């Protein structure tokens, strides 16, 4: 009898402990990495404004993907992973912007170079004796 009582008490104690642990787990859930997520959204938005969709589509796509994964991880309360994904999304979006600028600069130069060549050629012709 005594022995049975002892087993029941032990069970209750274990159950309480489990409940406490669960409550404790809830209380210690880390906050969502809002600032990192916001930074990623801003970086993506900047890249879109810079026309990265045209000049660095793959990079922009990957940044969006990372942001989506970060949101999923946040919902799953996997905040450490969510924050890393958000930071990766941000840096990838920044890369998209940087590559867009480089591509634009190169294409402007090419255009200008063609223009300069054409001009030089034309001038050369105009300068030749008639």
């Amino acid at each position, binding site marked *: 009898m005594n022995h049975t009582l002892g087993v029941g008490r032990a069970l209750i104690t274990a159950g309480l402990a489990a409940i406490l642990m669960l409550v404790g787990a809830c209380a210690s859930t880390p906050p969502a990495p809002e600032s990192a997520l916001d930074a990623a959204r801003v970086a993506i938005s900047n890249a879109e404004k810079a026309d990265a969709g045209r000049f660095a589509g793959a990079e922009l796509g990957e940044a969006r993907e990372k942001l989506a994964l970060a949101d999923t991880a946040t919902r799953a309360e996997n905040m*450490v992973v969510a924050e890393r994904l958000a930071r990766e999304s941000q*840096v990838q979006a920044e890369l998209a912007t940087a*590559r867009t600028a480089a591509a634009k*600069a*190169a294409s402007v*130069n090419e255009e200008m170079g063609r223009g*300069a060549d054409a001009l030089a050629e034309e*001038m050369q012709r*105009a*300068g030749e004796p008639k």
Partner: protein
Amino acid sequence: MNTLFRNHASYATALTVAAAVSVTLAGCATAPVTPDGAAEVRAKLTRLQSDPDLATRAPVAREEAETAVLAAEAPLATDEDATLGAHRVYIADRKVEIAIAQAETGEAEERRVKIAEERERSRLDARTREADAAHADAEATRVAAAGAATVAAVKTEDMQRQIDALEAKATERGIVLTLGDVLFTSGQADLKAGAAANLDRLVGFLSQNPERKVEIEGHTDNVGDDDSNQGLSQRRADSVKTFLVQRGIESGRIVSSGRGERQPVADNQSEGGRQQNRRVEVIIENSAPVVGST
């Protein structure tokens, strides 16, 4: 037996030591390691830093990349989150790529300035060429004009020289050329052969000044009778006219007359004076009438 036991004990000790060593070694093997991919990212950053065209550009991005690569290279203990290393490498890789892209943009923009300068230069060159051509045209025109002026000047100068050569003198009536009687056979109207050279200069002058009319007057000294002097002076004047016409001077431009002994230029008392009076004067009329003189 005792010895064997002792040997056994020392064997056990050796085993224990060996185990301890191997545990230590194993500990070393699982000690903090640099994440995979960190070396590649470092190599990429080093390439950027040693690219002469890009190394000095995008300093802020390069600094961030350097920091990120250092973070990626930080060894991670085995019990640390395995994905943290991959995350750091990812960030470092993108930071390096951003630095490269920004450096390339800077380089392209700098090159653009050069392209623009080049374009401006070729435009300028063309304008310069045009201007040079125009200048050359103007210069040619100027030279031509100057040439014409020079020709005119030379012509005037030339004429003066010719007049001088003819031993002529400018008078109100025009240029008066006096052909002395040494050009004629004494008492005759025929021109001596040596006269031709002298008269050729007159022919040249008249050819170059076709608008000028010519009067040829024959004169004599007072030796002999008037009629024969008149006749001789006329014939000598005619003789000069004939010579000029033979040399291509239009006869309509030439009037010849004999003045006899009536217009001496020197004293007939002396031989020198009489020689001076025996002459043929060629008066080349001024091309334009002189205003005020009649």
